[in-house]
């Protein structure tokens, strides 16, 4: 069947099925391969996209739940100002090694920033609790988000 939705700001319609995973649609139908498949079961966060502005694991979302809604992938988010800040923070903290987890990690960080809460260690850890990184041991990632918090806060002031 034809399913229509908004993808990275553009209205799209594709021939697919209701039970197809959103992950496969963005990767296979639209060649947006920044969204990764890690665990396929909601544990690792490599496949995170925004659905109506909220983080979801695209490996767990059937196309039925995407009909008429807005999807933003890492490719769409990377056009935005805030992406550059997060990317720079990650680079400066040395938080990127093999890079596999990073697109999902960046999306999850944006998810945390959208909460508009002070970025305490607890908020950062909880916000990244659905993202697995097999290289960094997380400390440099937490550090990147901490510094980013200070910077975003300074911007607001």
């Amino acid at each position, binding site marked *: 069947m034809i399913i229509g939705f908004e993808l990275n700001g553009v209205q799209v319609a594709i021939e697919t*099925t*209701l039970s197809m995973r959103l992950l496969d649609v963005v990767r296979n139908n639209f060649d947006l391969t920044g969204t990764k498949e890690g665990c396929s079961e909601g544990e690792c966060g490599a496949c995170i996209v925004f659905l109506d502005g*909220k*983080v*979801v694991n695209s490996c767990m979302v059937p196309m039925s739940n995407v009909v008429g809604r807005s999807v933003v992938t890492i490719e769409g988010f990377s056009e935005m100002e805030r992406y550059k800040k997060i990317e720079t923070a990650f680079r400066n903290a040395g938080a990127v090694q093999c890079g596999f987890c990073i697109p999902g990690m960046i999306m*999850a960080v944006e998810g945390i920033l959208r909460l508009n809460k002070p970025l305490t260690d607890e908020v950062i850890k909880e916000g990244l*609790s*659905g*993202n*697995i990184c097999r290289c960094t041991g997380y400390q440099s990632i937490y550090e990147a988000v901490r510094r980013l918090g200070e910077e975003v806060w300074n911007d607001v002031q």
Partner: protein
Amino acid sequence: MFNSIRPNSLEELLEIIDNGDYYIFAGGTDLFIRKRQWQGAERKFDKDVVFISHLEELRGIFEDRNYYRLKTCVTQDEVANSTLLPDYLRVPYGLMGNPAIRNTATVGGNIVNAAKVADSLPLFYALDASIVLKNIQVDRVMSIKDFIFGRYKTDRYENEIIYEVIIPKEDFSGFRYKKIGSRKSSILSKLSVFIVYKKAHGKIVDIRVSVGAVNDVPIRSEEGEKEFVKDNDIDKFLLTIREMMEGEDDRRSTKLYREEISLRIIKKFLVEIMEE
């Protein structure tokens, strides 16, 4: 082959499930994993699937004079961030899964799945919550405690959906919640302890204690709670709970560990509450 259906209304959904055996697919965070077969990208199901998450009639959090009402497709995140609901509901929901899971997993899905580790069940047992089940003809209201038969077993007929959860409003003085898990993310709990209580003039006048993920279904002793309000005897209360424990060793942890830890947590909480 299986068919996937996306009804346009609640009525259409009820008609569909009245005429066949379907998987009811809400957030899919249990179903996508349990029923999957690894055959390429598209998830294959061994029977037809009907999607329900998009139905407006199944969404929203409401209150009236005596009850909170959570429609079945309310997400865990919506509960955790609700401005209407009390902290004793919001806090435990904010500790389920992980942020991305909470944005898709639904209230009703956690109940119908009836996993031993389902984190909402101890809350609903302690709060005396009920559900409304709907089929094309009638509604049934039953307590969640009666609805859950055992691990993955419920009193749902194939032509029924959970429509909403009804939680009595009470002016509790406070609550305690502790969940202990093992995995880094998504902490499927090894055990959880939930307590709500009322105090008046420094004395406990109502207390509810439930323990999740130790037995197949949550543990709660209403008799024991009544006794405890009368005699404030912590050791006697712990003995009552211990006698109800029937956990077996499983991959997540041993029987003894879980029983001992949950009793220790209850004890700590009860002491705190009494001293408060």
